[in-house]
C-alpha cells in the first residue's frame, strides 16, 4: 500500500467477459484526482464496458475497482454518470427540468420527492450548460446537442467528485462541443476528476491532459504528452490508422 494520496479511480486486474469472450482483459488503471482523462480505442475496444464496470453496471469476471479507496457502492454519492445519449428514449413524456432533477434522486434516496431546493439546483445546472431557456421544453423536441447538454446538467446537479461520461461529444454541433470542453475544464479546475470515453483522436491533445489507450487490454495510460505517441496509437489501432503528428 502506497502512502501517497489516494487515487480517484483505481482499477486492478479487471477482466470482464460475456460468456467466455473477454471484453476487457486484465485492465490496470490509476486515475489521480483532478485529471481530465479520455479513454480512446477502436470500436469494440471495451470503452463503454470499462465505464459500466466502474459504475457496477456490469459484473467483472476478475479484478477490483476502487474509488477513493472504497468500492463504488460506498461512493455512489460522489460519482456522476453521463450515459450515451442514445441509451434512453427521448420520446418519454417529460421535460428538460424534470430530467435534470433526476440527477438529484441519488441524494434524495428512496421515496422522497424532489422539492424546491432540488429545483433550484437543477435550474442552476441548466444555466451552466446554457439551457435555462428550455426548462419546460419536451425532451423529444431537443436537438442532439441540446440533449447532450441536458444530460451534462443532470450530471452536474449531482455535485460529484468523479464524473464518468460516455461519448459526450457524439453527434453534437461545434458550439456544443466547445461548450462541453469548457465545462469539462471548469470541472477539472475545481479539482474534480473527469473520465470521458472519446472518439476523435484529433482533439485528444487539445481537450485532455490524461489519456488511456484501450483495446480490450490496456495499451497505455498517463499524461497525454507522454502517452499519446504514434507507437502507442499504432499498437491500439493496429495498422488501420493513418495518424499524422
Amino acid at each position, binding site marked *: 500500500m502506497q502512502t501517497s494520496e489516494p487515487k480517484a479511480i483505481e482499477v486492478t486486474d479487471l477482466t470482464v467477459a460475456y460468456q467466455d469472450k473477454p471484453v476487457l482483459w486484465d485492465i490496470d488503471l490509476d486515475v489521480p484526482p483532478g485529471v481530465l482523462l479520455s479513454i480512446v480505442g477502436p470500436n469494440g475496444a471495451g470503452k463503454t464496458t470499462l465505464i*459500466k464496470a466502474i*459504475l*457496477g*453496471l456490469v459484473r467483472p469476471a476478475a479484478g477490483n475497482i476502487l474509488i477513493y479507496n472504497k468500492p463504488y*457502492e460506498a461512493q*455512489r454519492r460522489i*460519482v456522476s*454518470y453521463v*450515459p450515451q445519449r442514445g*441509451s*434512453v*428514449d427521448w420520446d*418519454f*413524456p*417529460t*421535460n428538460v427540468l424534470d*430530467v435534470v432533477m*433526476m440527477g438529484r*434522486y*441519488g441524494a*434524495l434516496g*428512496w*421515496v*422522497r*420527492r*424532489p422539492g424546491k431546493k432540488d429545483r433550484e439546483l437543477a435550474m442552476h445546472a441548466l444555466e451552466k450548460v446554457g439551457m435555462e431557456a428550455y426548462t419546460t421544453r*419536451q425532451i*423529444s423536441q431537443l436537438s442532439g446537442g441540446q440533449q447532450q447538454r441536458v444530460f451534462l446538467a*443532470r450530471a452536474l446537479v449531482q455535485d460529484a467528485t468523479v464524473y464518468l461520461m460516455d461519448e459526450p461529444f457524439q453527434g453534437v454541433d461545434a458550439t456544443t462541443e466547445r461548450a462541453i470542453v469548457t465545462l469539462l475544464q471548469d470541472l477539472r479546475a475545481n479539482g474534480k476528476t473527469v473520465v470521458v470515453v472519446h472518439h476523435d483522436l484529433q482533439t485528444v491533445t487539445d481537450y485532455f491532459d490524461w489519456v488511456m489507450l484501450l483495446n480490450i487490454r490496456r495499451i497505455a495510460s498517463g499524461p497525454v504528452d507522454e502517452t499519446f505517441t504514434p507507437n502507442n496509437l499504432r499498437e491500439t489501432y493496429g495498422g488501420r490508422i493513418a495518424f499524422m503528428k
Partner: protein
Amino acid sequence: MNEHLDIQLIAIVTAVACALPGVFLVLRRMTLMSDAISHAILPGIVLAFFLTESLSSPLLILAAAGTGVLTVLLVELLQRTKLVKEDAAIGLTFPALFSIGVILISRFAGNVHLDMDVVLLGELAYAPLNRLKAFGYDLGPIALYVMGTILVLNTVFIFVFYKELKLATFDASLAAALGFAPTLIHYGLMTLVSVTTVGAFDAVGSILVVALIAGPPTTAYLMTDKLSLMLILSAIIGSVNAVSGYWLASLFDVSIAGAIATMTLIVFGLIFLTVPNRGLIAIARRDARQKWEFAQTMLVIHLFNHEGLPEAEAESAIADLHEHLSWDPTFTNQVVRYALNNRCVSQDERQLTLTEQGRAIAQQALVQ
C-alpha cells in the same frame, strides 16, 4: 344499488386499476407482456383451484400472480441467452404455459365449473351476482371489492415509488448507478401487473384485460408530454371506455367486455385523428400547408432569379409559367393564387412581380 350501477362501477374500477400500471408497460414497450401474463396465469389458477376447490379463494390470485411473474422471468431468461429475441421469447412462453392450463382443465376438471369461454372473454354481466354478505346485509358485488383493493394497491405503489418508476423507465442504467435497483422495480411492477391481470381476468376475461392495460395509456400518450398527466388521462379514458362500452352493450344487447374493447379502439381512433399537433388530421394539414409553402417558395425563387434580367418578361408571364417550371397548369394556377393571397407576388396584366415580402422569402430560402 341496482345492477346497472354495479356493473359500471366494476368496469370503471377495473379499467382504472389496469390503466395505471399500463402506463409504465406502454412506456417500457412491454404491452405484449401483459398479453402474455393474462394468458400464462391460467395454469396457476387451475392448480390453485385443484388445491382449494374454490374459485373465490385468495390463493387463486396469489398462485396466478406467481405464474405471471414466472412468465416474465422465463421470457427474460430466454432473451438473455441472446439466441431468442424478446417478441419470440414471449410468443414461445405464454402459449406453453396457457396450454398447460388448458390440458389440466380438459383432463381433470371436465365436469367442474371452469369454463374456457368465461376465462377468455369473462362475463361482466354475471359479476354483480356474486355478492359479499355479512351479518345478513348485502355489501355489494365481490368483484368490486377485489378490484377496488387492487386499484388501491396500484395507486399506492405508483404514488410511493413514482420517482423510482420514472427514473427506472426512462434511464435504467442511471437508476442502477444511483442505487435504485431497477430490476427490483421491474419485478415489483410485473407483480403488480400480474395481480391486476388476475383480478381483472375474473371480472372481464383475458382479452379485455389487455385492451384495458394497453388502450388508455396509448391514447393518453398521444395527448400529453407529462408523465403524471398521462397517468391521470389514462384513468379518465379507461373510465370513459368502460361506461360508454357498457351502454353500447346494453343498446345492442351484446357482450359487455366486447363492447368495452370496441370502445377502447374507437376512443383511441378519435384521439389519434383529432389530437392537436400530432394527430393524423393535424399532420395532414401541416403536410398540405408545407406543400403549398414549398411551391410558393419555388415560384418566388424562380421570379427572383430572373428579376431585372432581359428574359424576365418571358419568365414571369403567368400563361407560360407552367412550361418554365414544368408544372401541371392547374397546379400552377393554384400556386399563383396562393402566392397572390399571401402577398408574395402581385399581378399586373399578364405578368407576376415580386413584392418586398416575396423577395425577402426568396432571399431567405436561398441563403439557407
